[in-house]
């Protein structure tokens, strides 16, 4: 009846989820909203006036440009100088010609790994590593996504699931059934400047992987407008028909996630001692049974967030305040200590042992019941 499960630690990323028509983006600032059409902003240099007016117009579309990634593509920057002087005692003021420069789109993308090294067992399926793709350019850009799990430098090759790329549609940071699969060319993520989308790479672990071995999986995000050396220009392919210029990230970015095989071997033994009301050891009504469970990691690796869950046997009643972990008392209530008597269903003793390694030695849990 006992279960003792090493639970791989999964990554929980804070982030606010906003659902779009396509799928759910996780936005990491308050301004990363989508503009379908980029309005032209003319920056005349009269700080505070025309630009504010332009922003008000954008406000009608329910979105704001994100300036952190730079001045939005399509912005016109105008400049007019004024000269004033006295000629024969008469003050005169003149304006120069107006120069106009156009802000074109700079294509840049960054991919970052969000998960820590993922502990897996051989033959485990659907092991998900979380990445974040961020549009660091100054315009709307569409990116294609690619998985590669055959990198050199690791000990084994994870096997991509089919499909292998998912969006973290519910923004939970955990791969689950609600997450939408990526379909190349169909739902390529469209990101506004500064916006990001969280993406899982999902692999199976080969049964031949050995304890302590590492496997790599890589996510690559590529601008669908184009890639190239910085400065490469794509005429007319930027937002609103301005040119698109490849930035320092070359229009493509990748990050590598890691699986670590942690096939932890656990030894665990449960014993019982009966004490009857008459000084003997007969299991008669009124007798007390003391259960002792010992847990030990007997191999390399970490049994993460280990927890012991042991239901009270039928025809017995739990002895209040009888739980001990390594001889220290654990209260029955669900509080800050390492365990409790969980009475939400059938009464069950729960003790959380945490991350266990061989170095932690034997963990001993004791509790008592009386026979009804």
């Amino acid at each position, binding site marked *: 009846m006992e279960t003792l499960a090493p639970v791989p630690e999964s990554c929980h990323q804070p982030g606010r989820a906003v659902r779009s028509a396509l799928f759910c983006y996780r936005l990491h600032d308050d301004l990363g909203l989508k503009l379908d059409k980029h309005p032209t902003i003319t*920056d005349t240099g009269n700080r505070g006036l025309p630009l504010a007016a332009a922003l008000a117009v954008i406000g009608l579309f329910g979105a704001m440009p994100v300036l952190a990634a730079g001045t939005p593509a399509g912005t016109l920057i105008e400049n*007019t100088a004024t000269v004033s002087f006295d000629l024969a005692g008469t003050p005169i003021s003149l304006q120069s010609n107006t120069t106009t420069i156009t802000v074109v*789109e700079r294509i840049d993308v960054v991919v970052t790994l969000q998960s820590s090294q993922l502990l897996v067992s051989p033959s485990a399926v659907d092991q998900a590593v979380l990445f974040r793709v961020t549009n660091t350019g100054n315009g709307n850009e569409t990116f294609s996504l690619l998985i590669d799990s055959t990198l050199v430098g690791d000990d084994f090759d994870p096997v991509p699931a089919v499909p292998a790329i998912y969006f973290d549609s519910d923004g939970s940071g955990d791969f689950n059934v609600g997450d939408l699969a990526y379909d190349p060319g169909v739902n390529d993520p469209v990101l506004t400047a500064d916006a990001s989308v969280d993406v899982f790479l999902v692999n199976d672990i080969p049964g031949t992987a050995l304890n302590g071995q590492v496997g790599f999986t890589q996510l690559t995000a590529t601008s669908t407008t184009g890639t190239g050396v910085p400065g490469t220009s794509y005429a007319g392919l930027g937002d609103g028909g301005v040119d698109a210029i490849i930035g320092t990230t070359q229009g493509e970015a990748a990050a590598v996630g890691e699986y670590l095989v942690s096939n932890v071997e656990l030894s665990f033994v449960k014993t019982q001692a009966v004490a009857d009301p008459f000084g003997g050891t007969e299991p008669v009504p009124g007798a007390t049974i003391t259960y002792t469970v010992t847990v030990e990691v007997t191999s390399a690796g970490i049994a993460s967030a280990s927890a012991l869950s042991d239901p009270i046997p039928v025809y017995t009643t739990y002895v209040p305040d009888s739980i001990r972990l390594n001889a220290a008392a654990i209260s029955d209530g669900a509080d800050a200590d390492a365990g409790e008597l969980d009475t939400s269903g059938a009464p069950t003793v729960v003790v959380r042992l945490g991350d266990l390694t061989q170095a932690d030695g034997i963990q001993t849990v004791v509790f008592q019941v009386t026979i009804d």
Partner: protein
Amino acid sequence: MKILTTLMVLMMVSSTHALAQQQGHLDVTTSVQKEEVTVDESGQSETKLVEANTVVPGDRVIYTITFRNTSEETAENVVITNPIAESLTYVAGSAFGPGAIIEFSVDGGQTYALAEELTVTEDGETRSAHPGDFTHIRWAMQNELAAGAQGTARFAAVLD
């Protein structure tokens, strides 16, 4: 008929003259260039100024204002004023103008002071102004501009 034509020519001449007066006998022109860094095969980088029609965030642009006294008289108290566009950040120390006192504004051109004297009040606290706070630059020429003479004012800014 001939008289009429002559009259028209006279009128045209006089109206051109009036326009010139209206223009004030000073030509002022702005131009904008950007820095383009090229790296040759030996790894030597070279910075050139090229015409700036298009820019991307991070580009450094240089505005040049030239003014010439096209009148027959000496111009006095010549002052050049140039706004700094919202999406540009002035490059500290880049403003240049022979014989000019160069001052800056942080309030949209209402008041001007030397860069190091300007302050900005933000969230109730007063601090020294940063180049990013500057909204306008003003070049006050200390010398007269003789008939036919020319002057230059210049500054650099980075596109946000």
